[in-house]
């Protein structure tokens, strides 16, 4: 989903930068507030950022015969809400733009918008929706991470199709072209990301019950009876 350096026309690059800025500013505020009010959460924040670091570095073969990488933003969005992920995702993208020539500074706004804003929000929305309907925790986590991953690549396709409409068929034609490169390739990777996010969440449930309860991922004891019985909660 990294749009390469210089590959968006200036007007588009600026527009996406302007669109992304308020989300990142809001994210920095939430992040500083979280660290000030709950210094103990710094470690878990670091772990969420680290998860994005690992997953976005792994280029994995897909069924379309090309390689792509997961985003790792669903986990942090579920744990700390999407604004904080806007910051952690931006840090990851900046690292890759500066050191790996992967993505770029002129396309940072667009890449932040897809991976650090839309992905986390879409994934978080699906996670919350499923939890509201008493879906087991780990199922909600899986689909949250799956959607965060896939929606990121759909946004990238839209961004590129807006910048480079097909000479004949216009925006829809270009969207189909970029969509077939990104979105289809991404489906099995989004499944992988969902599974890996479930794995990390399972480890967190075992190791950091107090933290997850404070963050509202696990319910407090006593309210458990009326709560959805997820597989892990049932075992706990």
């Amino acid at each position, binding site marked *: 989903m990294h749009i390469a350096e210089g590959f968006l026309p200036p007007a588009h690059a600026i527009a996406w930068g302007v669109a992304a800025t308020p989300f990142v500013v809001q994210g920095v505020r939430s992040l500083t507030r979280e660290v000030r009010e709950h210094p103990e959460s710094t470690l878990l924040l670091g772990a969420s950022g680290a998860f994005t670091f*690992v997953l976005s570095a792994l280029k994995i073969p897909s069924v379309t015969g090309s390689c792509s990488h997961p985003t790792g933003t669903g986990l942090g969005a579920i744990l700390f809400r999407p604004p904080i992920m806007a910051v952690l995702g931006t840090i990851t993208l900046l690292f890759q733009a500066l050191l790996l020539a992967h993505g770029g500074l002129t396309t940072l706004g667009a890449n932040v918008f897809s991976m650090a804003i839309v992905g986390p929000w879409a994934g978080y929305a699906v996670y919350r929706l499923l939890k509201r309907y008493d879906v087991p925790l780990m199922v909600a986590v899986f689909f949250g991470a799956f959607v965060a991953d896939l929606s990121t690549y759909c946004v990238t396709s839209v961004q590129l199709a807006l910048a480079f409409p097909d000479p004949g068929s216009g925006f829809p034609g270009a969207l189909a072209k970029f969509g077939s490169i990104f979105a289809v390739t991404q489906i099995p990777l989004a499944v992988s990301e969902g599974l890996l996010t479930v794995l990390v969440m399972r480890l967190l449930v075992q190791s950091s019950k107090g933290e997850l309860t404070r963050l509202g991922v696990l319910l407090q004891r006593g309210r458990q009876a009326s709560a959805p019985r997820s597989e892990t909660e049932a075992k706990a």
Partner: protein
Amino acid sequence: MSRNAKINALLILLVAALAVLPLALGLGDHKKEPFTGADAQAETAIAELDPEYEPWFSPLYEPPSGEVESALFAVQAAIGAGVLAYYFGLRRGRRQGETRARAAEVTPAGRDEE
């Protein structure tokens, strides 16, 4: 192996299978260059849609070769994996410490069953 560990191992196996199957089944064979990055393919697609387009900015730093680039990607993954491992190691250690402290409170000092 506990049930928990089995489920975790199964999750890892599934992810590995999803990555290996496209390679094993030769799903890239129809391509001239199999398993290139989707990001690079998007650049090619842009060149097809708008042959006149020239990137107007180039990266400040570019890894001099594919090897250096993959090394830097490995560094990125290693940093992330290191932080994650530190987190879970610390949590596990703390939990063990707490359990031990609780056990020491229950059994009078000197008669610690260890």
